[in-house]
């Protein structure tokens, strides 16, 4: 029975994939690892020879390895196809006597939003949009944040005409509109730009982006909320991501939850990215406070919901190694980051 060393297998696979110059060759390499006569299959066949208590663990390792090598092959395939077409285009342009302009791509935040939209659409969620210039009513009061309440201090609002008209400080304002304008059962997400009175520097801006999710159904529990958020993070950051949920107060939910992701830079040990904590705050979530439902004319005894709101900018920056948040709103981004998606 051959020795099973998943990390060396993975390294070998990556090297072989990277060194393959053609798509056909790529298929060959992939088949050697992932195919029905491939390496992984052969390890699976040998599971029966292991002592009983090791089998489950081996099976899980093999599944993970299969996922990882599949992802590597996909990434290499994408690289090759893009490279080939860009190379071919450039060659043609040269023949015709001009220089090909640099080809741009969608903004990384747009890419992330589209990916999340697709993910949630496949779960049966609608995608809602709402005004960026908002009223006090929908941005605060309908979220269980009354005037003169200390919870108003949790955000610094930019007013157009105090106190009635403002720039929305979170996409939760569209949550309240969604609850008011539609009857349950409801499942919707809201991607959007939000505004807060922040000093602009490398890591903060007064313009940033949220992704909100809301589900109001006959029966909903924290397990459903955690499962949904886990699913979201795994999709964005890969199957190995670790998420924890802690108690975190927000007036619009009860109980309130703070999802934290384990710092991918240091695997939870503590570093400069996560300020030594090992965990990164991703946003807020929880079971929708009955006051919100009541204010929307929904009977909290018949319907229950969960909601989450996640900040997009910092994590897009971390994933694509963009070090200054101001870059996200400038024009220089077009040529500066990878279009290949690298899972963490």
């Amino acid at each position: 029975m051959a020795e099973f060393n998943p990390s060396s297998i993975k390294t070998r696979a990556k090297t072989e994939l990277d060194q393959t110059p053609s798509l056909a060759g790529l298929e060959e390499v992939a088949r050697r690892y992932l195919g029905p006569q491939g390496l992984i299959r052969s390890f699976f066949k040998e599971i029966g020879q292991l002592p009983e208590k090791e089998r489950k663990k081996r099976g899980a390792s093999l599944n993970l390895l299969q996922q990882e090598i599949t992802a590597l092959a996909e990434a290499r395939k994408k690289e090759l196809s893009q490279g080939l077409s860009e190379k071919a285009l450039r060659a043609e342009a040269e023949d015709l006597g001009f220089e090909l302009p640099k080809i741009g791509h969608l903004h990384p935040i747009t890419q992330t939003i589209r990916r999340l939209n697709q993910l949630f659409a496949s779960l049966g969620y609608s995608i809602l949009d709402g005004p960026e210039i908002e009223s006090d009513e929908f941005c605060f009061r309908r979220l269980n944040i009354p005037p003169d309440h200390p919870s108003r201090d949790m955000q610094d609002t930019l007013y157009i005409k105090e106190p009635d008209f403002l720039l929305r400080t979170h996409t939760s304002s569209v949550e309240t509109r969604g609850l008011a304008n539609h009857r349950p059962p409801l499942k919707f997400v809201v991607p959007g730009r939000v505004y807060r009175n922040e000093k602009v520097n490398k890591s903060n801006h007064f313009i940033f982006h949220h992704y909100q999710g809301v589900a109001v159904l006959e029966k909903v529990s924290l397990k459903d909320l955690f499962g949904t958020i886990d699913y979201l993070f795994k999709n964005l950051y890969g199957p190995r991501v670790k998420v924890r949920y802690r108690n975190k107060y927000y007036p619009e939910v009860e109980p309130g939850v703070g999802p934290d992701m384990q710092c991918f830079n240091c695997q939870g040990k503590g570093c400069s990215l996560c300020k030594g904590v090992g965990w990164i705050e991703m946003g807020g979530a929880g079971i929708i406070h009955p006051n919100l439902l009541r204010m929307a004319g929904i009977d909290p005894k018949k319907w229950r919901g969960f909601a989450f709101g996640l900040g997009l900018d910092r994590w897009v920056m971390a994933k694509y190694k963009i070090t200054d948040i101001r870059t996200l709103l400038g024009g220089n981004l077009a040529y500066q980051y990878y279009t290949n998606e690298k899972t963490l």
Partner: protein
Amino acid sequence: MKLLYSQLKELLPGLKASPKEVGEKLTLAGLMLDGLSAVNYQGKSDWLLSLEVRQNRADCLGVLGLAKEVAAYYGLRFKLPVVRLPQPSQKKATAIRVEAKKQIKRARAYEMTGVTNRTSPAWLKEFLKLYGINSINLLVDLSNYVMLFTGFPSHLLDQDKMQGSLRWTMNKDFGSLTTLDGSVIKLNRDEIIIQDDQKILGLAGIVGGLAAAIDLKTHNVVAEMAIYDRVLVRRNARSLKITTEASVRLEKDLDPEGPNYALDLLISLIL
């Protein structure tokens, strides 16, 4: 809100968890640890935990509140430190007049005569410094100490600089207040204030005035602690653009029974 590990262990002798673990558990419970630093306190190595206290936990804006939370998490017994006050020498209650009755939930005051003020001992100066508060003099420092310890702000006045009794009113007559640090604030004549029979003594729940400020020569002291209509304190603080450690607490719903223990503790420390 910061928490000194040695002080936590003093209140909870049964606590076995390390500072890091206490921080982790409090984080899960809703009070996120956003800083843990090794400090030197009273010549011994110690740990200072910095916790994010969100708007729903005004009770945790004091060391006692945080200790209760830790005790609840670990199932430890928590006992309030015992406070013993000497018998008051006068049977008659101190004359304080609460004229703004609707805006005040609770007001308590003590008069102390023959007090000696001086500079604070090293431990108190060190303690306040951990919380970013400068030492002024012993009396003022003790008032700040009790605020940090119990979560209830208080205010001390030099009685010899007062004319008549301490009154809580809605401001109608005073256009400005000179605060403790000398700056002059224009008032809108609609704030809740403390005054005596002649002059304004402070913005209730926010900041005290220079007029009756405690200095090293003070001998007779009025100590007051009150809980107000939090909406009013917040509105006043916002419109006058002042934020203080006191206003941050009194803007939230504090326990009106709190001043029972907290003010007594302050008095016992002074005497």
